[in-house]
């Protein structure tokens, strides 16, 4: 993992001291709320529905055990004993007192964490494939590049007041687990025939009220040009992005209105001007950062089959199911990557108690070389587990309510905090997720349904990614009542598509039945058990689902 150098540490420490002064001046009345609000937002402090909320950056979703333990400590001491992992791989505390935030930030700084650029019209936390550096199907570890982008974008003076927020995602595998095509910039690291590293560059994707799929504007950008090219994109956006209307201010609108070809021409022109500047990355610097992300020295190949594991799987059906569903191959033989589901049946998606966080930290230290990841699907990951250790890891997770075997299944639901917490929301998301989870909770039924991603947002800002849910659910308020609109056929992977609205919305009472109708229609119409929901929908189109939901027209 990356470790702060003296500049990183000094910068974060100074920022804590600066914010401490700002909070003191706010509480003493020297600063009004209007003056203070942009300052607190720059440090991740929102005022939400019930209380302040602190959003903490988890760069490219990577944490170590010490950091997770610190999050648990903060949850217990300054919050209400839990935290919420978000769709941007960050962590939110829902109840911190303003007066305590400087102390919280000081604790975070002591473990190389902060809340800088988790809000505001700047380049936000760079996100990445949660299996980065471990996945068997990975061509390039995206984390070194995400780290280089983090350093470049942290307090970049030119990009602190962009027209709107700006999100970058990086992946290094053909299978896109980072939803790069719905980000402002999506980077797909790959190798050419000679083994050289470069990036496919996507620009102008996004969700929110105007969902758009990004356009690829470069097939293979050499790795040394990653910063100059991103800087060129940001410059074009900063100059020409709209500032007159916040709803049209994201780069997706600029790309849409200008056209991808013209944007590419403008970006290339700017890039030509700056590509040989100080932004050109020397090999030595790339190698220096890559060294931080080298596999642990003692993570060495083991036999591809584990007798211990195979024996345990025969006698422990729960373990067997968990291995089938939550564990994927590691690039080093005899190892695996495990997804820790934060979606217990009937629970709040993405929430973890302090005790659960501590357990995950302990398991990471003992079994996963100290590493933990956060996925944008609001789960945690232990990336480096020996196959022999999986039974012990599962047993410990299961005892702590973290052993749910549902990664990628119908109950592995993304949900934003919604109207239960969020000041912007129009409807609740969490209770809908819980009721769907309970409805489909039986393991046999989930297995029968297979891969199915349900994503729920409580307002059009789409933090719950509903546009790219195989089944998307958008909460709206209609005459004081919560209604839920269904979209079908969305996907955030390498075959990204935006879901289509299937028809009029459903009341809170009706929506779970409606989802079940959609699922049952899929089961009735799928070609065979191997045709998953998305494939079936793409083949069948809306018609059978519409008819099942609304009757023949």
């Amino acid at each position, binding site marked *: 993992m990356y470790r702060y150098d003296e500049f990183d540490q000094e910068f974060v420490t100074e920022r804590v001291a600066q914010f401490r002064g700002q909070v003191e001046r706010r509480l*003493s009345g020297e600063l009004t709320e209007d003056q203070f609000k942009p300052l607190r937002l720059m440090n991740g402090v929102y*005022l939400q529905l*019930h209380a302040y909320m602190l959003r903490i950056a988890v760069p490219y979703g990577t944490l170590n055990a010490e950091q997770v333990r610190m999050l648990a400590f903060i949850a217990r001491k300054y919050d209400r004993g839990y935290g919420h992992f978000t769709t941007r791989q960050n962590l939110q505390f829902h109840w911190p007192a303003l007066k305590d935030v400087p102390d919280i930030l000081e604790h975070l700084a002591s473990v190389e964490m902060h809340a800088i650029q988790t809000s505001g019209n700047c380049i936000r936390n760079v996100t990445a494939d949660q299996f980065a550096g471990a996945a068997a199907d990975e061509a390039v570890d995206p984390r070194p590049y995400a780290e280089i982008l983090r350093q470049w974008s942290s307090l970049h003076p030119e990009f602190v007041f962009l027209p709107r927020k700006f999100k970058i995602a990086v992946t290094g595998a053909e299978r896109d687990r980072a939803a790069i095509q719905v980000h402002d910039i999506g980077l797909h690291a790959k190798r050419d025939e000679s083994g050289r590293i470069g990036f496919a560059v996507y620009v102008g994707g996004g969700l929110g009220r105007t969902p758009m799929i990004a356009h690829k504007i470069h097939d293979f950008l050499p790795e040394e040009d990653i910063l100059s090219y991103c800087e060129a994109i940001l410059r074009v956006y900063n100059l020409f992005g709209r500032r007159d209307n916040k709803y049209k201010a994201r780069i997706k609108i600029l790309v849409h209105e200008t056209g991808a070809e013209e944007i590419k021409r403008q970006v290339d022109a700017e890039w030509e001007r700056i590509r040989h500047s100080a932004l050109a990355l020397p090999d030595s610097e790339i190698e220096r950062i890559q060294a931080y992300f080298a596999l642990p020295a003692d993570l060495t190949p083991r036999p591809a089959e584990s007798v211990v594991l195979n024996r345990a799987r025969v006698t422990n059906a729960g373990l067997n199911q968990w291995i089938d569903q939550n564990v994927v191959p590691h690039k080093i033989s005899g190892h695996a990557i495990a997804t820790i589901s934060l979606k217990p049946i009937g629970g709040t998606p993405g929430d973890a*108690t302090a005790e659960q966080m501590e357990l995950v930290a302990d398991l990471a230290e003992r079994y996963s070389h100290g590493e933990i990841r956060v996925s944008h699907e609001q789960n945690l990951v232990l990336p480096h587990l020996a196959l022999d250790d999986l039974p012990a890891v599962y047993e410990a997770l299961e005892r702590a309510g973290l052993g749910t075997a549902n990664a990628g299944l119908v109950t592995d639901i993304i949900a934003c905090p919604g109207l239960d917490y969020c000041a912007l929301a129009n409807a609740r998301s969490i209770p809908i997720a*819980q009721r769907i989870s309970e409805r489909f909770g039986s393991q046999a039924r989930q297995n029968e349904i297979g891969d199915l991603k349900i994503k729920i947002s409580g307002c059009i800002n789409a933090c719950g990614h509903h546009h790219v849910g195989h089944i998307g659910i958008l909460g709206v308020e209609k005459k004081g009542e919560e209604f839920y609109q269904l979209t079908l056929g969305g996907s955030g992977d390498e075959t990204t598509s935006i879901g289509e609205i299937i028809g009029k919305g459903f009341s809170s009472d009706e929506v779970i039945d409606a989802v079940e109708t959609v699922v049952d229609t899929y089961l009735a119409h799928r070609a065979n058990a191997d045709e998953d929901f998305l494939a079936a929908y793409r083949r069948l189109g809306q018609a059978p689902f519409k008819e099942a939901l609304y009757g023949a027209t």
Partner: protein
Amino acid sequence: MFKAATSGPAKVVTANRLDNGLVVFLDPQGGWTLDIAEARILDDDEIDAALAYGKEQDDARIIVDSYAIDVQVTDGLAVPVRLREKIRAERGPTIVYGEAERTKLTAAAD
């Protein structure tokens, strides 16, 4: 007494406390209470003065962002009309969270 035909729904003034952000309601003594049952219920002609007082309290660093909400008054108790404000008045989400949720899920699984 019939309410004048021109008058709107009853209101209460709400805000968040500056120091800890919690939801509060203006009470009859000019203080701020966490409990909407203790809130001062306002008629139309009292709203402007109450909001002006809220602004003063904002300046005095007691609260942040005060505003008036519509309420339905039943047996002297104010119940917010909008769901958003109902949830705020409940002092927390409509679902259990943290350790309480963990306990609930464990009980359900047993």
